[in-house]
């Protein structure tokens, strides 16, 4: 692939004070907006280290935000190679946590109790461990493994 230059630039293009001034003004305005953006953040929260990548994401529901921390707590407890399912108060939360679990519970296999809002109890029933976000329900026939800050882990035994 050859590239034949059609215009050769040996010298600089002519300089225009108006154009330079215009770009300077544009940059100054953007810098001012940037300062305003940070001024809008409460001073005590401005540089506070977050507890998760989702801490300050606007528009996210709380359960998704806190679910990240829950899953990292679960990661410390679940044995590698085990299967798990996630139950929560609503299908949206279950889906969010199920998706996040792929990032955190990398040594385990997730089987959804619901997927994109559609109940898949037969798949969830194949999982040994039940991660109950918010400890929404006791799991019949399962033993409690751990009660964490944001949820409970249940063991249904070998599947």
């Amino acid at each position, binding site marked *: 692939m050859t590239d034949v230059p059609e215009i050769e630039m040996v010298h*600089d293009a002519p300089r225009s004070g108006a154009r330079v001034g215009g770009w300077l003004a*544009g940059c100054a*305005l953007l810098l001012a907006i940037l300062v305003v*953006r940070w001024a809008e953040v409460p001073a005590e929260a401005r*540089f506070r280290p977050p507890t998760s990548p989702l801490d300050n*994401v606007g528009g996210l529901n709380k359960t998704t935000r806190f679910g990240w921390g829950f899953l990292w707590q679960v990661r410390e407890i679940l044995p590698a190679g085990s299967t798990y399912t996630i139950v929560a108060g609503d299908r949206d939360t279950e889906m969010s946590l199920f998706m996040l679990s792929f990032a955190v519970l*990398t040594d385990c296999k997730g089987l959804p109790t619901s997927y994109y809002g559609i109940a898949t109890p037969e798949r969830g029933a194949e999982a040994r461990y039940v991660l109950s976000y918010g400890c929404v329900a006791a799991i019949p026939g399962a033993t409690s493994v751990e009660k964490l800050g944001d949820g409970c882990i249940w063991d249904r035994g070998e599947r």
Partner: protein
Amino acid sequence: MADGVTFLVAPLALAIFGLPAAWMHPVSRFSAPGRFSAAFVAGTVVYTVWLTLLSAAGIRWSDASVIVPLTLLSIGGALVLARRKVGTEVGEAESGSLVWWAAAISIASGTGHLVLMALTSRATSVDYLYFWGVKAQRFAALGGIDTALLTDPLAVHMHSNYPPLVPIVYAWGISLAGRLPWQMGLASCAAWLLAGLPLLRDLLARRLHRDEATLAASFWFLALALALPAALSAGNAEPPMVLFVSVAIAALLEGSSRWLAIVALSGVVLTKNEGLIVFLLIAAGGIARDLAEGARGARLVRRAAPMLLVPLAALGSWLLLEALRGVPMGDATRERAGELALGRAGDVVAGMVRNLDAGSAGLAWLVAVAIFVAARRRWRALLPAIVPAAGTLAFLFVYYLHFRGDELDTWMRWTMPRVSLSALAAALVGAAFAAAPDRRLET
């Protein structure tokens, strides 16, 4: 901390695989950072295509299969081209001048803003946690594209058909850092913009006075540094997308670096599914410009064919893998094409306008549009920017007409700032070239 820094810096090493780009015309005359930037763009694309082909062939990624052949190829190509190096350098802003300080403050502030927004979790793309990072972890652990994950019916949310550039580049960082540092990884959005900045600046300096080129590039950088966090795009595919789109359009407008546009367009199609639309729009803009300026027949074909065929061939590496490994080519989570809710056209237009804030209260868009209006006599020369900027917005209009749910406003507020970033990048780059002195744009 150390693994975080390693992860952030690691992608820059991909420039090793794109060294010939630093000796191609006119990049060989650019500043050292500009030449590095060109090598990074080319290296990222070459690396992605090669690793995708290896996975398609069932070959594991390793030093022997990746680093050795790509480095030898790259150095060999650079040595051949190095003999051809001729010409003068592009000028730089005088150190210590007002322009120099304005650029330094803009770039430092923009970088600081991006990094702080990312590290304080104010710019996180949830998709980074849902699938971009997940794929990268799995690809790095497996030493290849994890087709078992991509074909798992209970992993449809991975959007298996999304092109592989982002997870492949992240996987490179993971392999060097040892793990994915989820929090620090968000700051990679700044690295992508910074990596493209010197190249964009030097391309502009071929048509603008060096001071104007420096300031226009600084404006581009600041505008996108504000827009990316506002669009919650730390960690997702938008930062590389705006880099590739910007470089492709800048190279087409500059006029003598069409090969660089072709390389960047290959990056566009390998980064996002929407990249195919944006690529076609940029190529259409380039062809329309050539037509408007009198190119016909064989000359037109000679100019258009590589611009269309090379990026499609790059995308072909991914399509080949999908075909050979049974990875779905469609996306079950997406709306069905053609089912338009035309009655919502007014709501969609209003929603689009409301969500073009771009983190700068709409200033970035206003400046770009004002410059285009002022330069309207030269619209033909600016078609490579006008067509993708306007065309992407038109595409989004049609896309939102497909939305069937009740919460159109919420959906647009959540997605429009992000999916309009390519259009913004196109408009900013076009505006920068539109501000060139008369006749400097005519090719």
